């Protein structure tokens, strides 16, 4: 029977030749992920039920990233619990300060997740790895405790919607603009319980960083996961990181509840206004919106390609005195590569603050909390009430190009609207 990409991966992990939407299965997992906020809850569950072993110490990844380097005493206590657990069970993929990065940038970079894998994580943006042709999805801490103990997870096989991307996007349009456009089109519940599957000739114009950004925000449309067909770029990305690339493509005749075709060449840079990711408009139609802060980072847009775009716009310019600009490379390796490429120097000369990798302000943790009435443009993925600080503050979501251009102008603009004209 013809299956969607997600269904094919699930079938391969529960020993069935076929699965169909709505079916309940118990599937084997390739990797289980938790972080400094969610792992302590999983650890508590394991302890409460007297489970003293994990299924495979080489298939669990624990990443301290949300409040790390620890922002306060309580966060420090949580990290201590995770460190103790990692040590006790000999967890091979444990990442602490000095080598950590934001989990969803770090795991693909290290080759710990890849095409054909089934990955579950106690973090909603676990769906990011679909960029590589994996089935990966976020769950709660109890689900993850179950997976850590048994190496298995319960799944309801999702129905799917298909997004066929066509043509080459314009100069300042990146992955963030594509996914914000889609969420604006289908709403924050438009793909609820479903998988979002991406194919089409437009893929060849999207870098792996663009694809990570798109898959990352599948959850913001309510989806269980996002997944891309694999291609030459996937093979290139996985080379040296993984033994082989497991090809992933849509079966002819696979059933999709909805299909969409998107002409990437027609898009302009998109923003999402408070307080829901589907509240979108084109950046150049935002009107006069002054801003107090810009954040460029997170598991959505803190990768090298994102920093390159921002540096290209900020080079030789200064950020507006009103717009505090915080740049957070997502992993240590990205930080180092940005340093070697000269981006970090560009940022500092432009008047930006550059931070060690952390989730920090993305979830209103620390490193850039907003006061009442303040407004930020952020390359993160959620603009809910109070997400970056005071419930009376506002977050506008954007890609790195709009964020960098807005930092210079002190209000929301698209790069084409920069004073002094466009950039080379």
């Amino acid at each position, binding site marked *: 029977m013809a299956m969607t990409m997600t269904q094919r991966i699930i079938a391969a992990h529960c020993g069935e030749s076929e699965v169909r939407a709505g079916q309940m299965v118990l599937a084997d997992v390739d990797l289980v992920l938790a972080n400094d*906020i969610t792992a302590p809850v999983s650890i508590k569950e394991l302890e409460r039920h007297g489970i003293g072993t994990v299924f495979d110490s080489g298939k669990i990844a624990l990443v301290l990233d949300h409040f790390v380097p620890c922002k306060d005493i309580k966060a420090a206590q949580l990290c201590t619990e995770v460190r103790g657990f990692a040590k006790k069970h000999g967890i091979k993929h444990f990442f602490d300060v000095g080598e950590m990065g934001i989990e969803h940038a770090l795991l693909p970079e290290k080759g710990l997740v890849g095409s054909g894998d089934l990955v579950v994580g106690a*973090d909603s943006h*676990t769906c990011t790895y679909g960029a590589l042709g994996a089935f990966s999805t976020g*769950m709660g801490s109890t689900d993850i405790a179950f997976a850590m103990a048994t190496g298995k997870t319960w799944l*309801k096989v999702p129905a799917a919607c298909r997004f066929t991307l066509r043509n080459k996007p314009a100069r300042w349009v990146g992955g963030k603009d594509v996914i914000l456009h889609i969420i604006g089109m289908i709403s924050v519940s438009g793909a609820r319980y479903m998988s979002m599957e991406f194919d089409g000739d437009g893929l060849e114009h999207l870098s792996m960083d663009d694809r990570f950004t798109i898959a990352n925000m599948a959850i913001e449309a*309510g989806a269980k996961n996002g997944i891309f067909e694999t291609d030459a770029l996937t093979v290139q990305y996985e080379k040296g990181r993984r033994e082989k690339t497991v090809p992933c493509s849509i079966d002819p005749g696979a059933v999709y509840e909805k299909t969409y075709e998107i002409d990437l060449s027609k898009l302009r840079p998109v923003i999402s206004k408070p307080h829901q990711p589907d509240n979108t408009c084109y950046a150049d139609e935002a009107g006069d919106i002054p801003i107090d802060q810009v954040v460029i980072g997170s598991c959505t847009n803190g990768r090298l390609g994102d920093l390159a775009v921002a540096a290209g716009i900020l080079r030789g310019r200064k950020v507006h005195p009103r717009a505090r600009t915080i740049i957070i490379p997502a992993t240590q390796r990205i930080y180092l590569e940005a340093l070697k490429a000269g981006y970090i120097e560009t940022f500092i000369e432009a008047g930006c603050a550059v931070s060690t990798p952390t989730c920090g302000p993305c979830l209103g943790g620390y490193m850039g909390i907003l006061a009442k009435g303040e407004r930020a443009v952020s390359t993160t993925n*959620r603009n809910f009430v109070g997400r970056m600080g005071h419930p009376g503050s506002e977050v506008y979501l954007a890609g790195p190009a709009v964020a960098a251009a807005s930092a210079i102008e002190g209000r929301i603009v698209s790069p084409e609207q920069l004073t002094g004209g466009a950039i080379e």
Partner: protein
Amino acid sequence: MKLRGQVIKYGDNIDTDVIIPARYLNTTDEKELASHCMEDIDPAFSSKLRGGDIMAAGSNFGCGSSREHAPAAIKASGVSCVIAKDFARIFYRNAINIGLPILECPAAVEGCSDGDELAVDLDGGIIENLTTGAKYSASPFPGFLQDIIASGGLMKAAEKLVAGK
């Protein structure tokens, strides 16, 4: 299981950041989480509670993050059950896994207002609005969830699987 309580009603797309803001996630203490439950959208929430209250909400309840702290905060605040038109996927799993009773029933949500008295029969999925006299039936749990509930929650099922190895 039979529950009875007064309705506290909210709209669509109640996300996990308003159920429990991330700035309080530096603890796993459920009482402390409960003390901040819903505060960004409804600062009076904790003063409204009378014990056993029933939260009613629109579509996509619990969208956003995977934080189990969200259903945990609701449960620890003394809410006995959440009835929504439908739930976000991760919240739905989390609520079942930690034992917060939830029901999907658009008609019951449409037909109730703040302060109405409801009687809920969880096993039968029957919701009765004692204030208006209307009766509703909610969609039952799918089979695999009934198995999990029958074994005493997801981690009880894990205990069995681990012991069976």
